[in-house]
């Protein structure tokens, strides 16, 4: 649970919303004066989605434990790895969520159902 105030949350929503709208409108508004993104900026923008998403995903799936074994046998890491394979093979967000969540539940609750 967050310790953010409600005013803070609304301020963040407004800030993200205004900046995002400015990005969306940028060239739709400017067209005729500036027609395209400069090649240098375009070149760097290519890498942004992969880098930002990976920096978000990895810490929420990998929990570093004292030993390598404990780190690798974490339920989130195993389920996340399975989900990555599904995302790679199917390219489908729905299957990725369903298989990833199912894998987590099987690892987490499966043993107690059998035993």
């Amino acid at each position, binding site marked *: 649970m967050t310790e953010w105030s409600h005013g803070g949350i609304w301020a963040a929503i407004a800030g993200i919303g205004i900046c995002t709208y400015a990005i969306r409108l940028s060239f739709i508004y400017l067209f005729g004066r500036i*027609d395209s993104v400069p090649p240098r900026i375009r070149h760097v923008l290519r890498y942004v989605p992969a880098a930002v998403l990976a920096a978000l995903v990895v810490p929420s799936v990998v929990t570093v434990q004292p030993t390598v074994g404990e780190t690798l046998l974490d339920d989130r890491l195993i389920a996340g790895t399975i989900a990555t394979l599904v995302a790679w093979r199917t390219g489908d967000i729905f299957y990725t969520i369903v298989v990833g969540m199912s894998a987590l539940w099987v690892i987490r609750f499966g043993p107690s159902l059998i035993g």
Partner: protein
Amino acid sequence: MTLRERLHPDLVAGIRAAGPIVIGIIPFALVTGITAIGAGLTVAEAVGMSVIVFAGASQLAAIDLIGSNASFIVVVGTAVVINIRMIMYSASIAPYFQPFSLRIRGLAAYVLTDQAYAMSVAEYETNDQRHRLWYYVGIAATLWVVWQIGTVVGAVLGASVPDSLGLDFALPLVFIALLVPAMKDAGTTTAGVVAGIAALGVASVGVPLNFDLPIAAVIGILSGVAVDAWRNV
């Protein structure tokens, strides 16, 4: 005249084209609503964010970071950086919208998304007869409506889902589904892999105010640039 006959045929074509993507949007929207509540947002804040921001990956990132008490600048900065890609869509679709008034273009910009952009431009390039605006609005408005309903349903459900189910894990799963196709060549794959490793490394060092995410992302981007520069020598 039925309602359908009164609508512009290209608006109807756009709504139909949006059908298959809607299936992918629904779980994404539900997860956004559910995790917003899990992170401590109210239903009004969750829905307000969907209406005002209307960009899934950035909303999830903001929710994730607010939930972990990151600083204001990191939350807003990360969300905005995730959306920077849309500057390319804006530039690419701009010539098709040029004939329309500024007010219409302003509204079209509000509903600009990855899917609406990609599908509309693909259609414009192969079918010259399609009405530029109506087809786009058919797709974009459909996605908007589904996204809003999905977030509301998720937010209302979110309050009654037990924590032990680990539904917060759906959030990294959505990011994985977006990340994998984003790593499409050597440069972008390097950017992703290095940023992921860097995120763990930086987090273990302990950077204040959750600046670990932007630092890791910048390291990843620079690595991608370096790899492509080296390959092109």
